[in-house]
Every structure is written in structure tokens, then in C-alpha cells.
């Protein structure tokens, strides 16, 4: 039964969706303090290379590698976030895009460590490693009616799902708090926020760094799901994809990034049957959706509308007020 539903192809797509959601959130979170960072492909690369190199060369357990990947990306986030404070708007966007490019070029040129464009292969695979530890306990996927590779990908998806739920929970709570309000205030009027006693330096670097950590985290996960990475994975196109996730989905809300990542990962797959035209259609979809919903698909009023529906259904009132951001 389970074996019929769990098609590895679909599991694979789901796992990419889940990684992309983290990437989408990584832009969203930096954007929530008014900073548009296009450097997240670079941070993703840093996370991916860190974890891959550590697990390959030093036999570090995958989980430790992933965490260290995120941490190293976070350190770079602080290092870039501080000078980036001086920039705003498009200046910041392009400078961070440039940072991503510089990182990629370094991966290409620093051959002794990164193998250049040859890339790193033989990275321990998240699913396979998990599977190994299950095997030790004597577990056999056949007991669930699953084939090995189905089970492996199921493990990947479940792990990523857990991570996603934790992250979303984390950021929703953060956003509803004093910290989230500080981000939002800075986004709307930096000078006024400063006058209200908000340490804008701290909060801007915080949100920039959180974005970097998330991107690095997603990158590390990506490395262990693909088992192979090369500098081209973290180039301009990746930066643009990540941007699209968040803006297309709606940049005001975390749900926007989640929806955007899901939709934009599925779209090219769904359009596979018209292979020749699929990227053209992808472009047209972007143009059309922006014309119709320039604020992104998910926005506050849509959310409120949903909440109202829910309220009516449940026949009671939910909470006292609806937040602008959550």
C-alpha cells in the first residue's frame, strides 16, 4: 500500500520543495527587516561546501556537518552583514548578488580544496546514512512494504519535513514577538525605528545573519541530498530562483515563501510534457502573476480572508486581532 504511494520521483520532488522552502524563508527573513539580500546562493554554497568537506575529509557525522555548515554560513553572514549595513535597497541587492558571484568564483579557483569545477562527489547521502543506522537496528523496509530506495527517500523527506516544521514554528513565533516587530519597524522606517530605541545595527545584522544561516543550512542539506556539488550549483540562477520563491509567493508573510517555493519547484516539473516551451511558460507565468498580484500570491488580505472563512466554519472568534505580519 505505502509502497505504491511513495514514488521515489515524487519523494525526490518533495525533498527539493522542502529544501527550497528553507531557501525561500532565508530571503524572507532578511527581507522582513527591509534588506534585500541576493547573496543567499553564496551562503548556500558556503554551507554546502563546509558540510561536504567536513564529512568527506574528516568523517564527521552528517548532522554535525550540516550544523557546522549553517554556522560557518552564519559567520560569513555577520561578516557581510556588518558592512552591508551601509547599503540599502538595490545597492544592497546587487552588492550581495556580487558577493554570491565572488563566492562561486572562489569555489571555482580554489582547486586544492574545492576541486574547482570538478566539484565534490562522494558526499555522504543523508538518506543512505540514515538507512544504514536503521539497518543496524535490524530494521528492513520490507516490513513496511517498501523498497530500499523508497525507504531512503522517505527518510530524507521525513527529516526535511521535521526541520521545516521546526523552522517555520521558530520564525512565526519570532515574528510575533518584540524581535519581529523590531524587524518590521526597521523595514518600514529605519530612522523612525532608531528614534524609537531600536538598535538597528543589531537587528539588521541579526536578520541578515539568520538569512545566511538558513541558506547555509539549506545548502548543507542540499549537499547531502544530492551527494555531489559543484560551484555551478550556487550561481546567479540559484540566487534568482530563491528570490522568486519569496517574492512570487508573497514577501510579507512567511507563508508566501513557503507557497512560492512549492509552486515554483513543481511548475517546471508539471510543465515537463511541453518540454520545449516550459521555460518560456515559466517566464510568462512570472510576468502574468506579477501583473495580477504584484504583492505576491499570498498576502495579508488573502490570509485574513482564509481566517474569516475558518472563523465562520468554526462559528467562533479566533484570537483578538489579526496581525499584519506573521
Amino acid at each position, binding site marked *: 500500500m505505502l509502497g505504491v504511494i511513495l514514488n521515489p520521483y515524487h519523494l525526490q520532488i518533495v525533498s527539493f520543495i522542502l529544501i527550497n522552502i528553507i531557501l525561500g524563508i532565508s530571503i524572507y527573513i532578511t527581507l522582513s527587516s527591509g534588506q534585500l539580500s541576493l547573496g543567499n546562493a553564496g551562503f548556500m554554497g558556503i554551507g554546502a561546501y563546509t558540510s561536504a568537506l567536513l564529512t568527506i575529509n574528516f568523517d564527521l557525522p552528517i548532522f554535525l556537518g550540516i550544523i557546522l555548515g549553517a554556522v560557518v554560513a552564519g559567520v560569513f553572514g555577520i561578516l557581510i552583514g556588518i558592512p552591508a549595513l551601509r547599503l540599502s535597497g538595490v545597492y544592497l541587492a546587487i552588492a550581495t548578488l556580487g558577493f554570491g558571484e565572488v563566492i562561486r568564483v572562489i569555489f571555482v579557483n580554489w582547486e586544492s580544496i574545492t576541486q574547482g569545477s570538478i566539484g565534490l562527489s562522494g558526499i555522504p547521502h543523508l538518506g543512505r546514512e540514515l538507512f544504514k543506522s536503521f539497518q543496524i537496528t535490524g530494521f528492513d523496509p520490507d516490513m513496511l512494504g517498501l523498497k530500499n530506495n523508497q525507504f531512503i527517500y522517505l527518510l530524507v523527506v521525513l527529516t526535511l519535513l521535521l526541520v521545516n516544521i521546526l523552522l517555520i514554528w521558530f520564525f512565526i513565533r519570532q515574528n510575533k514577538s518584540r524581535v519581529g516587530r523590531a524587524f*518590521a519597524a526597521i523595514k518600514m522606517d529605519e530612522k523612525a*525605528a532608531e*528614534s524609537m530605541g531600536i538598535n538597528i545595527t543589531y537587528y539588521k545584522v541579526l536578520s541578515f545573519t539568520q538569512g545566511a544561516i538558513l541558506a547555509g543550512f539549506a545548502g548543507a542539506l542540499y549537499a547531502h541530498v544530492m551527494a555531489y556539488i559543484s560551484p555551478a550549483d550556487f550561481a546567479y540562477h540559484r540566487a534568482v530562483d530563491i528570490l522568486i520563491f519569496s517574492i512570487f509567493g508573497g514577501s510579507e508573510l512567511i507563508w508566501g515563501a513557503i507557497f512560492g517555493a512549492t509552486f515554483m519547484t513543481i511548475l517546471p516539473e508539471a510543465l515537463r510534457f511541453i518540454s520545449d516551451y516550459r521555460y518560456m511558460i515559466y517566464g510568462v507565468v512570472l510576468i502574468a502573476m506579477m501583473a495580477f498580484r504584484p504583492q505576491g500570491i499570498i498576502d495579508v488580505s488573502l490570509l485574513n480572508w482564509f481566517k474569516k472563512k475558518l472563523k465562520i466554519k468554526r462559528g467562533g472568534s479566533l484570537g483578538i486581532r489579526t496581525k499584519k505580519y506573521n
Partner: protein
Amino acid sequence: MVLELKNITKNFGGISALTDVSFQINEGEIFGLIGPNGAGKTTLFNVITNMFPPTSGEISFLGDKISGLKPHKITDKGICRTFQNIRLFSQMSVLENVLVGSHCRSKSGVLNSVLRTKAQRKEETNSLEAASELLELVGLSMFQDTIAENLAYGQQRRLEIARALASNPKLLLLDEPAAGMNETETESLFDLIKKVQKRGVTVLLIEHDMPFVMKLCDRITVLNFGKKLAEGTPTEIQNNQEVIEAYLGAEEDDEIA
């Protein structure tokens, strides 16, 4: 003495916006700052809150030197301001605007916020209560869920005051709070500022509405071309010939009460 300015000078390139301005504000006072357009009043606010540093001069607040502190530190110390051109967080609700105001009076960081620790929850409740109370005070309770930019002008001004008060300031700087208000509204603003004073907040206020200023303020300083022209009680100022010439104008009708 709450605030003391010593020889403040501020130049923008060739333009000297402030020259050698000194004065002191006493605890609990409502202190007026008036003068012609371009006299340097807003600039003085910006210098006090260190939005930009003075070219020279020194500022002390409650006996401590505050020149050179970051703006948010100054707010932390107890000085908060409103803006001449209204700078609310336009996409936030009224209530949230006030909550942001209380930022520096609370301290839970990321971890506490995410884990919703007891301390954090208590802090949130306190901030919410304080905010509701302030909205009550400025008469915006019924608008608490309205998005700030959809408020009418006068309401926005009052919201700015509530937001500033949320930071629990000892000194409140108001930049033309009555601008864009009609007389009835100005009167309710008058009552509001009096109430604020009763809470023990010292007020420094820029305003061009003379009847309002004269009735409200305990003492007034007049700036002209960046220099201090006069200082004194409303009556003294109103009768100061120089001030009349530079700013008030001859009373051709019964405008000034």
C-alpha cells in the same frame, strides 16, 4: 535640570542651521521652541537625538553627557521624539506602532521570544496593557487594529505621541504636533499634552500655533537664523519687540488670545 544644551552649532556645508545655541530645560516643564521657518528648530531636535552630530557643542541629559550616543541609546536614556513630517510605521496597525514604541523598555531576545518563556509572556502582557492605556490616553482605542497609514492626519499625529510615550520617556520632543489640526482638535491636543506633563514627563515642543504655544508652555526659547533670539515666559516673549518683528508679526486682529 533635565536637558542642557551648551553652545550648539550645526553647519550644513555653507549653511549654518544653528549657531551657538544654549538653554536648559527644567524637570516637569513644558518648554516651547519657536521661530521662523528655517530657524533651525527641527535641526535642533535632530542634534539632540543625534540623528546627526552637531558641528560643535555639548548636550547633557539628567547630568550625563549624551552627545555622541547612538540615537537608540538616547531613546533608551529617556528622550523620545515625534517628527514634523509624521513617520509612523505605516503598514503596521495602530497598536503595533505603540508596541514598537515600548521596544527599549523590554528586553526579550530571539530565544525567549521563540520559547515564549514566562518572562517574555509577562513582558508582552505588560507592553500590551501599557499600549492600550496609551491609546486610551490619546483617544485612539477604537482604532487599535487600523493600519496606521489609513488614519487621518490628526489621528496620525496623536498616534506618534502615543508611540513616543510608550518608550516611557523623561523628555518628550514634539515637532509641530498641532500642524494640520483645527482648533477643536488643537484643544484636545492641549489637554493631552497637559496630561502627559502630569505623568511627570518633561516636554520640549516646536509649534507655530501661537495661541496654543502661549497657553501651553511654561517657558519659551525663540530661534532666528539659527541663533537664540530670546527666552522667557510666554508673556515676556509675546511682548518682546524683536520676537514680534522676526516672528510673531504685528497683531492686526484678534488672533492671539
